């Protein structure tokens, strides 16, 4: 049943997504949806690499590399968008190959930290050298050229909706590739690596090769999003591609739930993109509310939203929440308290502990 149902659900979902700009006429909302889509894709690719055991903080950097490369190629190189697109993605992939070859030699923190530093360096480079426009960035990045259609007319890129569909095309490609990867031996190897490095090696999985492959693919996809973004927003600033964004990408993933490869990131990206916008009314409080929301979701929904929705009974949920508030989780931890009072307290807690652990 699963397979069939999923296929229908996915098709329905796709149709709805495709129809959205027709239903929601306001360009502002379409703009929001574009952002959500882009962030979802970024989050999805992040999750893919995360499941292979790599917490990649350099994704925002490649997003930026893609954006800047395409901007430079079109603005200063005179290329049209449709040539710049494959060129930029290819260039970014090559950069990813070089950088990745150095980075993925290590795993765990030995990978995370250098990738974070890379995330710092890239926007700094873009912001420092005048050729990239410096602090201010680049402006008037040209829109994609219109695609001539048979019959005389052409697809123009001026309205929000047109960009929406362009992005949708990209997003579909990315998702299809992602899912194919997950289902292939590559995906299987990644999952194995993510679960146990040692065992994966023992069955003959070449960790370096698969990590590098993942890194390049993910970076190229991020770059693809960057190319789109550059031409969509027509001006790019180095600051938007820095470590901030890198962390936000992780947030989209975690809040949505990393157990789910596609839907989780969409939800996470959706929430984190929409809420700050929606709360613009209360502009003064907005970041605070977003921040508080992030913290609350982290505390109360440890598996992210999709993890939470993954079949929890109401009783389990409330028991869990109460347990959290009472801090019973940490009581179970390895902190010993020597004094008697604590032991007595522990005893009392021990009783209710059983009830809680039964329920969740």
């Amino acid at each position, binding site marked *: 049943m699963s397979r069939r149902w999923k296929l229908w659900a996915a098709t329905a979902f796709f149709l709805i997504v495709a129809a959205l700009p027709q239903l929601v006429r306001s360009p502002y909302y379409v703009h929001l949806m574009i952002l959500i889509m882009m962030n979802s894709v970024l989050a999805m690719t992040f999750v893919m690499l995360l499941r292979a055991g790599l917490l990649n903080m350099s994704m925002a950097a490649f997003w930026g590399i893609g954006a800047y490369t395409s901007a430079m190629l079109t603005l200063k190189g005179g290329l049209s968008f449709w040539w710049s697109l494959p060129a930029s993605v290819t260039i970014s992939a090559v950069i990813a190959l070089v950088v990745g070859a150095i980075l993925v030699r290590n795993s765990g923190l030995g990978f995370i930290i250098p990738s974070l530093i890379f995330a710092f360096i890239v926007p700094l480079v873009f912001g420092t050298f005048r050729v990239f426009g410096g602090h201010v960035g680049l402006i008037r990045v040209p829109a994609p050229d219109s695609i001539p259609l048979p019959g005389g007319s052409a697809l123009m890129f001026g309205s929000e909706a047109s960009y929406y569909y362009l992005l949708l095309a990209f997003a579909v490609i990315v998702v299809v590739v992602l899912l*194919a*990867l997950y*289902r*292939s*031996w*590559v995906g*299987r*190897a990644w*999952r*194995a690596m993510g*679960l*146990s490095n*040692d*065992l*994966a*090696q*023992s*069955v*003959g*999985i*070449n*960790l370096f090769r698969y990590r590098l492959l993942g890194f390049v693919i993910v970076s190229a996809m991020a770059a693809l999003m960057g190319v789109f973004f550059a031409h969509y927003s027509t001006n790019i600033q180095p600051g938007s591609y820095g470590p901030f964004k890198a962390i936000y990408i992780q947030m989209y993933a975690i809040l949505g739930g990393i157990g789910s490869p596609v839907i989780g990131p969409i939800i996470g990206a959706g929430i984190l993109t929409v809420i700050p916008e929606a709360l613009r009314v209360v502009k003064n409080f907005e970041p605070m509310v977003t921040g508080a929301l992030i913290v609350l979701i982290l505390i109360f929904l440890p598996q992210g939203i999709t993890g939470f929705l993954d079949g929890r009974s109401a009783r389990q949920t409330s028991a869990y929440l109460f347990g959290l508030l009472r801090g019973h989780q940490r009581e179970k931890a390895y902190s010993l308290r020597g004094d008697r009072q604590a032991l007595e307290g522990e005893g009392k807690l021990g009783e209710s502990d059983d009830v809680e652990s039964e329920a969740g």
Partner: protein
Amino acid sequence: MGVVLEIRKLTKRFGGLTAVLDLDLRVNESEILGLIGPNGAGKTTVFSMISGFQRPTSGQILFDGQDLVGKPAFAIASLGIARLFQHSVLFGNIPVLENVIVGFHRNRTSGLLSSFFARKKARLQEEEFKAQALEILEFVGLAGLKNELPINLPHGHQRLLSLAITLATKPRLLLLDEPVTGMNPKELKEMVRIIRLIRDRGITIMLVEHHMRVVMDICDRVTVLNYGVKIAEGTPQDVCRDPEVCAAYLGKGTFGVA
């Protein structure tokens, strides 16, 4: 009978500590060689070096004539050496059947491109592997648990699953690091039976074990290590009577009566 594995003057030093010193060892085809010794004798280190997880300080490890030293672990695994780790290392959050299928990695024939362009071929191979994985699970007796998560399994079953994964790699040489530790007598008998069957299929086995009964029972030959040095070698009976071996074990472990 051919020599599958030959170890020459293998030495491993960790800073000031010598874990293994000048070890010479031969493993013949289709035999079960036991590697025993008191705790800390260097047995697991030897396994680590053979399987490529640690690099020897000096010496050679020849597998069918090829020197393994310096090769990365995955390459050694691809050559046909599989290892059962001392602590059950498993892919905890995926079903048992999947665990075994991962083991077929080095034997797969369809690559990344197949998932796009040769869908039928890929799908056929999937089903083939599924069937083979089930076979292996039946062989070790876990077929009924194929959809369980390893983290939910009791210790004995986890060991069997680890064994199943190693079998999936279709190894020529199997390194078993304490396969029966922590098992109850029934599980133990089962494991011994399975190991024998594996050997009967032509797979060469090297066994590290503390349970002397088992060692005496299934090993064709035994090598004894103490503080990283080989102190005895021969049939289990010979070794058991060697005074130096007894001295090494005196006061330690379970040296069962033959």
